[in-house]
Each structure stands twice: as structure tokens, then as C-alpha cells.
């Protein structure tokens, strides 16, 4: 199947292009190109990301007509949501429940403080009600008022609504009313933008399902228009193959159908980073990894177990905006290079969560920022190259930065500028380590059982210190940490996820019905793969069951070995998983099967990672890999540290198989890697740095 479109890297290059907040990164793997590889990094064009994508393609030297495939990660939808630059949406819902989307789950934005605001995605005047009602078993209590649906659809159109949500109570158990209402609305609706709650997520909880559907509706036209612009640009440039789009679940989907479930593209950037990490770590021999991607304002942490990123479906993008579709479980923590350090009124040193952002930015940018940040502390301590400041016009001098740190942090704490900068790093690393531990703990894992996989611009700068704080024995830094997300696009498979709620105690479960649900999910996945028409080698099914003990509200995801799992197996798998997670066994209480989940993956041709390294500059002798030396500060104990004369290696001069000890700094196009004095480093056959802490 799909032989006509098979992506064959021997006949053309494949491009992964990821649009981030600051940069658009591109990787081209092309056996015909010199070295088989080209990369590009250019500033993102926020008003229309397509310009940046085209510029990156041009910079890479790719011949569009010769390419076998382009895989695209985009922040278009995430940005649209966060900035509320979304389509005008309307809602048709069950009579009596139009305010569900506004009332939420009765919370407040912060634990303390009774102020704060909230605006729903669909304003109240665009939320309509019709007569219809199902009970919790899916039985019809009030039949659907079909004329009412038509009238309300017309009225909403009249109000200028572009994208419509149909969301009825208990549609997760019986979607027939939603489906019929969608048919009726489609007769009068001038565009394809109709989203049924149950089609996006067949899970109970009306606020979460409805909001997820509203998110989908809000960004669907935005994504559609963007992809149309990009496709036109690509076609004009001579590109004739399929455009694939990265999703938050770590898989790709054809641009032709992605907008129908646009919500799946939210968080696709972080997901592709974790996909690349899983792929790379596995090739290096590590199946369990914590990923650490540090950016300017926050850091992303993900977990990989048994070679696969952990998936969850309970993201809260911002206050009261839950998005419940399966996605790679990436947790954002409020510390990044721009996080501000200060001394509070109790005389305590704090770092973050306030960030200097891009403007004015850290002191070192010289754009008027006068609050010390983590980046400033790294410069003062020689961990970032101070001479790089000279290359940037208008930037602040090291002396000025040191003085400012001394003034704001040093004086109140009785420390000099250097010691104050060291204190900032110590508190920042401690805080970040605590947050990473929390992320793994909340998911029931001990960080010591994982390797730390560091990427992004600033991740490798702090990773060795974090690993030490967390007692993680091994740190892995990939060959190209700065373009990890783009690599994730290239290695990801096509993927579709399906979730259905059953909510039945095991003792009452008709296992045949469960098998039927799994079979239907697999079939739906196959037909979507067929519809999108993109090439893949074979199909892989990942199945899991969300389970809980009767009376609980939290669910635990249990991987299933097959679609013919027996009742007894289900019970045992759940009890084992529960013990693993909570170290509590509860023979007294009955288990319940809540949801069944199938991920259908169309596996794409494997990409050899060895293509990512360019060994033409590698030096057989370590001393030749040293490009300079400088004084770099390292911690010795919890409270002491000092400057060390430290060699600076160029990453591309490190030969495969090279081994050396810290202290060291490894400089690379878009990142700096700090190796502490007690670390041992080895370059593995794929070009990864394997650091023993």
C-alpha cells in the first residue's frame, strides 16, 4: 500500500523543520548532498511562520523538487491560543448547560489571592442551547430538536461565527445526537469548521471535553489558513510530495487532514523534542531517560520509559484551559536562562519565576535589563563565553554585569560579585532539580533510574549540575542539541490516537465488548492512515487501559499486550501497575476499567542517526580539539567553589570514541556544554556525549 508515494531516502532528501518561539530550525537528510546533511537556523517569522520555513529551506540549499518529504512542527496553534488570536466560535449544546464552558470546575487562578480573571474561548452570546438529553447510560431522555439545531446554527452564522462546536452531555457514550446535529448544521454551514465534542475526545467530564472541542474549533481555521499558505509556497517552489505535520502525541499526520483535529498540534514542539530524545537515547542503549530542554523563560521536562515517551491526556495549557487529548507528557517548569534572581524582603535569595524575557532581557543583552538572570550568572562564572559579548553590538561588559550582581545580590547577602553569581546558580540548579524530581515523582518514578538527556540552547549548560543534584549517574548530550525538535520531526511516525470511556467495574465487564472497542479503534486508525495517503512501512498498535479502583477519581494508564486481553490479565496488569506507582495494594477494593486507548502508528523508514554527525573536522588527538582555555567556576562542595583553568573543545573536533575528563567546556554552534571536574566523558559511535557524573 502507498507504494506510489513511498518516502525513499535514497531517491530524495527528507526535511524536518520546527518553528519555535525564537528560531526556525531545519534539518535536511539527503544522501546526495555533501556529508548527507544540511542544517539551518533562522529567526522565526511570527506573523506568518511560512516565511521562516521557506527561508530555512533556502538556507539549507534544499532542492524542493527533489525532496521526498517534509515534516513540519509548528507553534501556530499554541501561539494562537495563548495570544487569543483565534477564530470566532459558536456552541450548540444541551439545554440548560451553555455555561459549562464559562463556569469551569469552580477554582481560582492561584491558591492564595482572590483576584484574577478568566475569559472562556467562546463568549456567552455565541453559546446556544437546544432541546436534547441523554442519561449516563446513553439512553435518550429528550429527543434532539432538529429544527432547533438548524435555527441556532443559522443564528450563530448571522452573528459572524466561523467555527462551530457541538457538545452534548454524555455524548462520549452515545454520540448519535451530536452526529445528527452536525449533519444538520453542515447543511447550512458555509465551511467545514464543525467540531463534535465526542469526535475529538470520547471521554466523560463535560468541561474538559467541551473545552478541548472549543480549543479545536478556535484554532482549526487558523491552522488551515496557515497550512494553505505554506503549501502554496512549497508548491510554487516545486515541491510535489506530501507535507506532514507534527502532533502533540509525538506522531505526524498529513497536512491534508490535520486541521480537522487541530487540537492535536498543540504542544507539538515539545513533543518532537522528546521523540528525538527517545530515538537517540535508544540508539545509544538507554531505554529510560528524563529529557531536559532549557529555554529562555521556562524548561521542559519529559519522561521516556522503555524507549517510548510517556503519554498523558491532561494538559492544562493555561488557567482553566484543559486540553484532554493524548500527548507526550511534557511538563514545563518556570525556570529558564532569563529567570530573574533577587533577594526578597526576608533576605532570601530567589530565582524566578519572573523572567526578563527577550526585552529588556538579561543584563548582558545591553537592552536596559538591570535585573540579574541565570544567563548573566553563567557569563560571570565563565560557563558561557564572555568574549561572545564582544561580538554583539551594545552588549554589557562582564564587569558591568558582575557589578550589578554584586549590588543586587551580593550586598544584601554579604558576598562579592563572583560568589553572588555562584549563589544564583546554586539556588537555580537546586530549584530546577526539585522541579524535575517533582515531575518524575508525580508520575511515580525515581529520577535515579533514568539517564538525563539534555538539549535545547541552555539545557547542556546546567545538565551536569542537575544530574549531580538528582543523583542521576549518566548524562547524555546528543550530537545536535540545538535542533533536536527538527530531528524529532524526521524520526516521528504517523500517529492517530483513540480513546473511549467504558467505566465498568471488572466484575461486570463484558470482555468481548472491550475487544470490540479496541478492534474499532484499530480500524478507525487504519482508515485514517489510508485517507491521509502518506507513506509508511508498517502499522504498529499501542494499546492501553485507563483503570482505577472503584470510588477513586484518578486513573492509571496500563499498557495492554494485545487486543484480546483477558479479564484476569487486566486485573493483574492493573494491580502490578498500581503497586509500581503507589506501593499500595488494595485487594479489598474492586478495579474499574475507565477508558480504552489505542494509538495507531504508521511507521516511517528509520533514519540512521550517524548521518547527524559531520566527522570531517574530528581530531584524533584530544589536544588538537582544544580551541582555547578560560577560567571557569565550578562548585566543589555545597557551599564552596572556585575557578579552574578549563579547556574549551570544539564539538566538531571531538572524534568518535574520544574520552576525556572534566573540567571542560564544549562549544557548539548553538549550545554550550559544561562538564564538571569530576565528570568523565565519552563520545559514542552516534556522536552523543555520554557523561558519567
Amino acid at each position, binding site marked *: 500500500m502507498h507504494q506510489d508515494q513511498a518516502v525513499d531516502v535514497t531517491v530524495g532528501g527528507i526535511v524536518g523543520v520546527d518553528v519555535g518561539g525564537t528560531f526556525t530550525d531545519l534539518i535536511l537528510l539527503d544522501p546526495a548532498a555533501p556529508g548527507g546533511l544540511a542544517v539551518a537556523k533562522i529567526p522565526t517569522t511570527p506573523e506568518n511562520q511560512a516565511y521562516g520555513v521557506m527561508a530555512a529551506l533556502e538556507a539549507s540549499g534544499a532542492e524542493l523538487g527533489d525532496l521526498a518529504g517534509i515534516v513540519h512542527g509548528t507553534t501556530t496553534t499554541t501561539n494562537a491560543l495563548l495570544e487569543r488570536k483565534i477564530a470566532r466560535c459558536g456552541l450548540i449544546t444541551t439545554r440548560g448547560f451553555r455555561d459549562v464552558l464559562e463556569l469551569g470546575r*469552580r477554582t481560582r487562578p492561584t491558591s492564595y489571592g482572590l483576584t484574577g480573571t478568566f475569559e472562556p474561548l467562546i463568549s456567552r452570546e455565541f453559546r446556544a442551547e437546544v432541546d436534547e438529553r441523554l442519561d449516563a447510560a446513553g439512553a435518550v431522555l429528550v429527543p434532539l430538536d432538529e429544527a432547533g439545531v438548524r435555527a441556532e446554527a443559522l443564528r450563530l452564522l448571522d452573528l459572524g461565527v466561523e467555527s462551530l462546536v457541538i457538545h452534548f452531555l454524555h455524548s462520549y457514550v452515545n454520540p448519535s445526537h451530536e452526529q445528527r446535529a452536525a449533519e444538520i448544521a453542515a447543511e447550512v454551514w458555509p465551511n467545514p469548521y464543525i467540531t463534535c465534542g465526542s469526535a475529538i475526545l470520547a471521554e466523560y467530564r463535560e468541561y474538559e471535553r467541551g473545552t478541548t472541542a472549543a480549543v479545536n474549533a478556535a484554532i482549526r481555521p487558523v491552522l488551515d489558513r496557515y497550512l494553505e499558505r505554506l503549501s502554496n509556497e512549497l508548491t510554487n517552489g516545486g515541491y510535489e510530495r506530501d507535507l506532514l505535520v507534527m502532533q502533540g502525541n509525538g506522531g505526524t499526520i498529513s497536512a491534508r487532514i490535520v486541521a480537522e483535529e487541530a487540537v492535536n498540534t498543540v504542544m507539538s514542539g515539545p513533543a518532537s523534542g522528546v521523540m528525538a530524545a527517545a530515538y537517540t537515547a535508544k540508539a545509544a542503549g538507554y531505554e529510560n531517560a528524563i529529557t531536559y530542554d532549557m529555554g529562555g523563560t521556562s524548561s521542559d521536562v519529559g519522561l521516556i520509559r522503555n524507549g517510548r515517551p510517556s503519554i498523558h491526556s491532561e494538559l492544562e495549557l493555561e488557567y482553566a484551559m484543559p486540553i484532554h487529548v493524548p500527548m507526550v507528557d511534557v511538563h514545563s517548569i518556570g525556570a529558564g536562562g532569563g529567570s530573574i534572581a533577587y533577594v526578597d524582603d526576608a533576605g532570601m535569595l530567589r530565582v524566578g519565576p519572573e523572567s526578563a524575557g527577550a526585552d529588556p532581557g538579561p543584563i548582558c543583552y545591553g537592552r536596559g535589563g538591570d535585573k540579574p538572570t541565570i544567563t548573566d550568572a553563567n557569563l560571570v562564572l565563565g560557563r558561557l563565553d564572555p568574549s561572545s559579548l564582544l561580538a554583539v553590538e551594545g552588549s554589557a561588559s562582564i564587569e558591568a554585569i558582575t557589578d550589578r550582581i554584586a549590588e543586587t545580590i551580593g550586598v544584601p547577602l554579604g558576598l562579592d560579585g563572583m560568589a553572588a553569581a555562584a549563589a544564583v546558580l546554586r539556588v537555580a540548579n537546586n530549584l530546577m532539580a526539585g522541579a524535575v524530581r517533582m515531575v518524575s515523582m508525580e508520575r511515580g518514578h525515581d529520577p535515579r533510574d533514568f539517564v538525563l538527556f539534555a538539549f535545547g540552547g541552555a539545557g547542556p549548560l546546567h545538565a551536569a549540575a542537575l544530574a549531580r543534584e538528582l543523583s542521576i549517574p549518566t548524562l547524555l548530550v546528543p550530537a545536535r542539541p540545538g535542533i533536536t525538535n527538527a530531528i524529532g520531526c524526521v524520526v516521528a511516525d504517523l500517529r492517530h490516537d483513540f480513546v473511549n470511556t467504558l467505566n465498568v467495574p471488572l466484575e461486570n465487564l463484558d470482555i468481548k465488548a472491550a475487544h470490540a472497542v479496541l478492534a474499532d479503534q484499530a480500524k478507525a486508525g487504519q482508515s485514517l492512515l489510508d485517507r491521509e495517503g502518506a507513506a509508511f512501512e508498517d502499522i504498529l498498535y499501542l494499546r492501553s487501559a485507563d483503570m482505577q479502583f472503584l470510588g477513586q477519581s484518578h486513573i492509571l494508564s496500563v499498557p495492554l499486550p494485545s487486543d484480546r486481553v483477558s479479564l484476569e490479565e487486566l486485573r493483574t496488569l492493573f494491580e502490578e501497575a498500581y503497586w509500581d506507582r503507589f506501593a499500595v495494594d488494595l485487594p479489598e477494593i474492586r478495579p474499574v476499567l475507565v477508558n480504552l486507548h489505542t494509538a495507531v502508528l504508521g511507521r516511517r523508514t528509520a533514519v540512521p542517526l550517524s548521518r547527524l554527525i559531520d566527522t570531517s573536522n574530528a581530531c584524533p588527538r584530544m589536544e588538537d580539539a582544544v580551541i582555547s582555555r578560560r577560567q571557569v567556576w565550578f562548585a566543589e562542595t555545597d557551599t564552596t567553589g572556585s575557578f579552574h583553568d578549563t579547556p574549551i573543545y570544539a564539538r566538531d573536533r571531538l572524534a568518535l570514541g574520544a574520552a576525556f575528563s572534566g573540567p571542560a567546556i564544549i562549544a557548539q554552534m548553538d549550545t554550550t556544554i559544561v562538564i564538571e571536574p569530576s565528570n568523565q566523558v565519552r563520545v559514542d559511535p552516534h556522536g552523543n556525549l555520554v557523561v558519567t557524573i
Partner: protein
Amino acid sequence: MAQPIDPVTLSVIQNGLQQVCNEMDVAFARSAFSPIISETHDRSDGIYHRDGGDLVAQGEDGLPIFVGTMQDSTRSVIERAKDLVPGDLFIVNDPYLGGTHLMDVRFVKPFFYEGELFCWLANTGHWPDIGGAVPGGFSANATEVEQEGLRLPPVKLFKRGVMDEEILSIIMSNIRIADQRIGDIKAQASALAVGERRLTEVLDRYGRDTVDEAIVELRQRAAQQMRAKIALIPDGTYEGEAFVDSDGVVDEPLRIALKIRKQGTDLYFDLSESSPPCMGPMNSVISSTRSSIYLAVKHVFPDIPINAGTFEPLHIEDPHGTFLYAVYPRPVSGCAAEVSQRIAEAVFAALSKAIPDLLFAAPAGTSGNFSMGGLDPETDRHFVCYLLSGGGYGGHPGGDGISNGCSTIGISKTTPVEVIEQRYPILYERYALREGSGGAGRTRGGFGVDYSVRLRRGEARASFVMDHGRFGPQGAFGGSDGGPNLLSVERDGERYVPPHLSKDQAVPISAGDVVHVSTPGGGGYGNPLSRDPDLVLRDVTRGYYDIDQAADLFGVILEAGKVDREATDRNRRDRGQAAAE
């Protein structure tokens, strides 16, 4: 202890202690059984000093009302504890020994480091039932604590790490749906075990003496930080009051009369003029009274840390002889959820006179507790379901109050309609924003909720412990009060309104009967006649208010979907003058 601890190590140890508590919070919620703990986070975990039980650190995600109570209950355990060995764990829910109501069950555990007692770890979890007259424990017309449920003095539920099956069996024989409680007990105990492991790591790393010293220093600094905030308040005495509808037994309002005197960097709270002890369950034990003041202050200054030092400059005189200082056997089930929020409201009202720019009009301030229990004939099983609801928050200098905010003393989510309907023989007829309920103001209050539920089959009994039925949440600086709580039961076409408006017990409900609840809106802030007319138009477009309300409440004249500026100005001018005269 030769030299003072260095400030950076101090920050790191503070993070470490906070992390221990946060991890206990997470461990407890993740594995707990009761949705009240796992979903609505009605729980808290902390570290307490070995000598007097003073609070060292508490989880950031815990229920606010527990900020001040757990140190009191730990203290009461310390006073009674004998022959402590590692693995011992006390259970206690006695309200008069540093508690709230009986449903809040505390586990208190001595923590040993290298064989010596270093500190105490404790947590509180709200159990869904603790026996007593009504399912769920909120008996609206109890007159003695015995009617409210099983009262446990501090007893060792675990001895040397082993659960005492005899004590467990006493508990299990006295509560409803006991079979699921074992899940909460295990979760509550295992959260403290997580705390022990992590605290041991912190001590291993920094050393016992250093951590000890850090605890003393952190306390001093927290006090210093609190004092820096208090210094923002001008010297003087500020009064605030708030009313509880009734005690559930005697139909008369209970008055909270608060005077806050600010002097230097200290605040003195005087509640002595408040109503005397009441017959019904609206008495507040002193630890709950104190905690309500602490959490109200923290709502005003959200960034102060939580430890015993924070409370040092807050002097609360014991209000003997009032309903805010309950002694045995006064019933107290309403103190944690309702009276606490009225106390907080009085604090807000008083402080708004001192520092108006940092305050807000009154929030809905009731948990809207509605519990219903019965036998489902379809499954032949007993059920107890709780419906909690939010209400509007008050307008504030930065904007309108949010709608359907949670209780002041909680930070919990409601259970979704679909989950309730899955579990119980109940059908919602509607769940809607309560139009017009937000108090008018320059910034208006948020809106309450209107919901109606029908019993689908069988028979049940309903109990209600709500408040603000007699008076809506107070407006501030000329803003109007929010809409008051409304409650009624529709039986065979007849409408029953509880005599006490917001409280009742064991109301019989039959299949087909419908309970209607309308929760309060928040108070308005500032003169409604100064509200931006475009915002009034937006509110009318959204159906929050109707056109007549726009004119009556805000003085804004709307014509054909637009603001009639001229008529609005004229109307507002005339009314402003009338008010001035």
C-alpha cells in the same frame, strides 16, 4: 553552632523542606481514594517542630484552612504522646484538640533521625464520612458533637509501623462506606512515609545541626517578611463584620465583630464582641478561628511563606464566650467550611478600610454543601453524594470578580455533572451561570451558579449547609452586595424553602423531586455609576444583566445594542447629585 548559617544554604534548605511537603501532598492526593482528597485536594501535609509542634513548612498545594490548624493538633499530640518509637503514627480528629470538624482526620507521626526525635510530620485528609446523624457529617441541626460522628482522641493507629487492627475495627464499625476508607488510610500513611524518606535525605545532605539552625532562622525571617507587609498598613483600628445566616437550630443571625488594631509591625485581632456560643453546628473551635484569620491575611499578601514565624506578628486574642471559641460539647461541623469564610470576610472588610488598593469586595464565601444519601433501587446499594458549588468573587481594583470561584478556604474542583450522573441516581436539569447575581460596582462581582437536580429513583434524604442566604456577600466602596444564596425543593409541584434558608437536614426527597440551588454572586467594588459603559453593554450582550438592570444598577442607557452616551451621562449625573444630596 559557631557561625550563623550562610544565606544561600538557607535558601536551599528552605527549598528542600518545601519540597518534602509538596511531595507528601502529591503522594497523598495521587493515591487517595476519596475524590474529596484526590480530586478536590481537601488535604494538607506539613513538618512541625519537635518541641511545641510549631509549623516548619507546609505543602503549597494544601487546603488553605489547614494552614494554622495542624500545628495545634500536632501540639495536642505532643502533649499526650508517651513512649514514642519509630513507626508510631497517631490518628486524631477531635475538633477541640487543634482541629476543625470531625471529618478532617489528622495523622501525626514522630520523625526520628539517627535514633532521635527530630520533628513531626502530619497530614489532614477530609474523610467522606465519619459516622453521626447524617451521611457526610454535615448535620445542620446537631446540638452536641456526639451527633456529628465518631470523635477520636490522639491514639496510635500504627505502632512500630504496624497498623493496630483493633483501633481500625472500631473506626470501621462507626463510619459509612467503610470499605473504601482503607484506601485513604493507606494513602494518608504512605504520604508521611514519603516525607520521612525525603526529609532523611535532606538531613543526610546538610546535617542535622545545620537544618535545625535553618529552621530557627527561617522562622525569624518569615516573621520579618510578615512584618514588612504589616508595615504597609497605617496605624489605627479597623472594624469589619460579617453574619452567618443562622446556626441551623435557632433562626437568628450570628455576628462576627472584628477589630483589627495595627501597631508598629503587629496586628491585634479582637473578636470578643461576636455572638455567644450557638446551639447548632456553627460554632468554631479556636484553631479553626485562628486559621481563618491566617488564611485571610495570606489571601491579601499571597507571597508570604507559610511557617510559624509568619503568624508571630498576628496576635489573636482568644474570644472566650463567643461562638468562635467552641468548647466541648458544642457542635462544630460548620466551622471549617462556613464560619471560617465569614471570619475571612470580616478580615477583608476591616483591611479594605486600611489598604483599599490591595483588597476586593466579598467573595461568595460558602462551600454550598449539599449532600444526599439514599438507597438506589436499581443497584440495591446505598449512596452518599456531595455537591459542592462555587460562587462569584468580589470586584477588585484590577477588574471584575471571577464567576464560580471556589470557597475562600479551599482550592478545589467540583465533580463534573457527567461523573455525578454516572455514579448516582441523579439527573441535572441545568447547570448555569446565575444571571444578575454579581454585585454592581465600578468593577462588578463575579456570578454564582444556578443548578437543579432531580432524584431519578428511590428515596433519599438531603442536607444543606450553605450560607449567605440572608445577606449577600458585601460590596465595597459603594459597590452593591452580591445576590444571596437561594435554596428550594420542588415536591409534587410544591416548593419547599428551608426555614433557615441556607441550612436544613434530612429533607426527604422522593423520585422526581427537584432541588434548586442558586449560589451567591460576589460583591461589587466601587460606585457602579462609574463603571465603563462599554463593559456594561458587553455584560448585557452576554446576558449577564438585562437592559433594565443596566439602567437601574449602572445608570447606563442602552438603545438598539449601543450605549446612548448622552442619556447615560444625564442619568448618571442626576443620580450622582441625588446621592450627594
